């Protein structure tokens, strides 16, 4: 009975804290400007099913794709086991599904155990790729300190959880074969049954191991749940809405700024009456100038570095890293949210995404080639943020590099980016 009460308190606290933190992230995302992504729902569901659920963009890197698939499927399927654990915890039962499912239960446990081994293997391989093989993709100026440890913590936690799960089953299975107490025969345990020889023979020790692993496993999962909102691992949740709200237009298409359209129409036609009010600012200086989708992108990023590894600017040693653009955006909007919580909604810290986080050198190095957006397995769009920040620099500050200002002048005066007279535009026909 005490166990059930303790369990209920732990579960309720975990759920409360998790929803509070998710609420904060939601609030932070909604600090962004509005953008309409409610069109074409059928196409959006399809995109989500293909890209998030079906992992369609992972295949470009086959080793990572297979290992990631193990963890992904493992995570989804083992959640059924977590449900049983939660119900057992609440009702003080033991393997509540075993009686109801009968022979099927063996199949479930069997598949959980095999998946647990696959998850373990994948986590070990991933740790090795990061720390022993030191894959270039996982390094970079933005991948020091917290982001570096975060990745390792996630993998280590998952290894611990899977180990506890298998050890729990092993002790349980041994108790079942001894027909001890309520440990009734609950089916086959294809992996953990191999571990029983490593366990002590005393039933009291076995019960202690089983109970300890049970508590460690479920409390670990609840703790991990609460770790998510502070971690890049949050992608397991946001990948779904983020792909649903993907840009559906061709990658080359940049949306037109409606506020500018109004001003340009008014310039070309004096009788034009603008329909929408002018925005406070053209382009983005701070994270709150970006759209909510940009901010959702930022919280969805799992820092895998596929974008940066294909970025032509980054490949050739320039400062730009699309992954850093996303991480900076997330860090900045999180900071703004924290400031609001601590000092009220009107607090200004005199910092901004531009210059305090992202430098102009990074922004001007982009070739807008869309390699980053193509590479992202969850359809994040760093390019859109880069362009919005360029818009701020150009339209609010008139601070483009001098050579680009020359180009603007040429387009405006001669109708071409170079200093050629428009009268000579058709000379090619006479050559």
């Amino acid at each position: 009975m005490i166990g059930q009460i303790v369990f209920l308190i732990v579960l309720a606290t975990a759920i409360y804290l998790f929803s509070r933190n998710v609420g904060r992230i939601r609030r932070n995302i909604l600090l962004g400007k509005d953008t309409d992504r409610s069109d074409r729902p059928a196409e959006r569901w399809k995109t989500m099913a293909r890209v998030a659920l079906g992992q369609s963009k992972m295949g470009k890197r086959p080793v990572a794709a297979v290992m990631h698939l193990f963890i992904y499927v493992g995570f989804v399927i083992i959640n059924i086991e977590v449900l049983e654990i939660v119900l057992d915890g609440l009702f003080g039962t033991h393997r509540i599904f075993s009686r109801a499912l009968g022979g099927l239960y063996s199949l479930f446990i069997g598949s959980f155990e095999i998946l647990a081994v696959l998850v373990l293997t994948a986590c070990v391989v991933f740790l090795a790729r990061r720390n022993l093989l030191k894959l270039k993709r996982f390094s970079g100026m933005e991948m020091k300190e917290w982001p570096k440890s975060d990745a390792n913590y996630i993998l280590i936690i998952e290894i611990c959880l899977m180990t506890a799960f298998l050890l729990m089953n092993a002790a349980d299975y041994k108790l079942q074969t001894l027909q001890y107490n309520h440990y009734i025969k609950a089916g086959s345990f294809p992996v953990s049954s191999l571990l029983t020889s490593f366990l002590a023979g005393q039933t009291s020790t076995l019960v202690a191991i089983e109970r300890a692993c049970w508590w460690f496993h479920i409390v670990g999962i609840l703790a991990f749940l609460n770790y998510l909102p502070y971690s890049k691992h949050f992608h397991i949740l946001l990948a779904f809405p983020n792909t649903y709200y993907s840009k559906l237009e061709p990658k080359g298409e940049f949306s037109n700024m409606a506020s500018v359209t109004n001003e340009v129409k008014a310039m070309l036609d004096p009788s034009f009456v603008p329909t929408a009010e002018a925005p406070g600012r053209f382009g983005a200086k701070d994270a709150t100038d970006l759209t909510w989708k940009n901010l959702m992108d930022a919280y969805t990023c799992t820092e895998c570095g596929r974008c940066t590894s294909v970025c032509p600017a980054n490949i050739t040693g320039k400062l730009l890293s699309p992954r850093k653009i996303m991480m900076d955006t997330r860090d900045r909007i999180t900071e703004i949210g924290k400031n609001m919580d601590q000092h009220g909604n009107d607090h200004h810290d005199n910092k901004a995404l531009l210059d305090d986080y992202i430098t102009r050198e990074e922004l001007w190095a982009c070739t807008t080639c869309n390699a980053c957006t193509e590479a992202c397995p969850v359809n994040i769009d760093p390019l859109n943020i880069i362009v919005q920040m360029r818009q701020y620099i150009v339209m609010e500050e008139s601070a483009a590099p001098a050579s680009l200002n020359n180009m603007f002048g040429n387009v405006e005066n001669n109708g071409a980016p170079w200093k050629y007279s428009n009268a000579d535009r058709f000379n090619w026909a006479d050559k």
Partner: protein
Amino acid sequence: MDELNKSEIKNPNFEIPTMAQMAAEGKQPEILFWVGCAGSFDERAQKITRDICKILHHVSISYAVLGTEEACTGDPAKRAGNEFLFQMQAMMNIQLLDGYNIKKIVTGCPHCFNTIKNEYPNLGGNYEVIHHSQLIQQLIDEGKLKAEGGESFKGKRITYHDACYLGRGNEVYEAPRKALEILDAELVEMKRCRSNGLCCGAGGAQMFKEPEPGNKDINMERVDEVVAINAQVIASACPFCMTMLSDGIKHRDKDQEIKVLDIAEITARANRL
């Protein structure tokens, strides 16, 4: 490779019709050829422009150009963040195009192609827009264009460099390759091709500024990939890629061994147009 240079000196021996002229005669062409700024002013790209005209003339498509009335689509301004300038250009161009009642456009540049096709509709400009590689593909599919009577590319190692705004930007991967497939050449792909293609370094208005500090220029990174697969010809479909790749090849002192040719030039040469 000398034979590759023969047709370079051959100029069109036909009039290139302008919209103004056609309108004056009360005629409406089937398609407008949007030349673009590079195609109009850049000497290397002018050759490609003339070759596109030769192809249009060869298959007797009724077409016209805007001549001195054409102006920048606004693409470099938009990518650089100058939305005002972009929309000014766009709206003036839309006025001009609608004034001539244009319905269909073929462009000689992936940037013009992307901008008119994707970004003009929202500003009121709705046209059927294709890139010249797509036109060539259509003509091949219809049997109107072959590779005969001109230079032989038989057995030559040819690779195609995907322009970002044609490939990833608009998922046009097959059309330019189709123009090469009829050559009976040895087609080779670079490691980074199609959706994984590496940018030449010119997009996003980079063409008009110095690159940021780094350890290599992007076009050199790309050209080294071409050198690595021993290609004799890099086929391109974008005037900016053309400049970047040609500069890179020259810089590596490989301009005798490796030619950079546009899809339109290759087609024109293969047919001795």
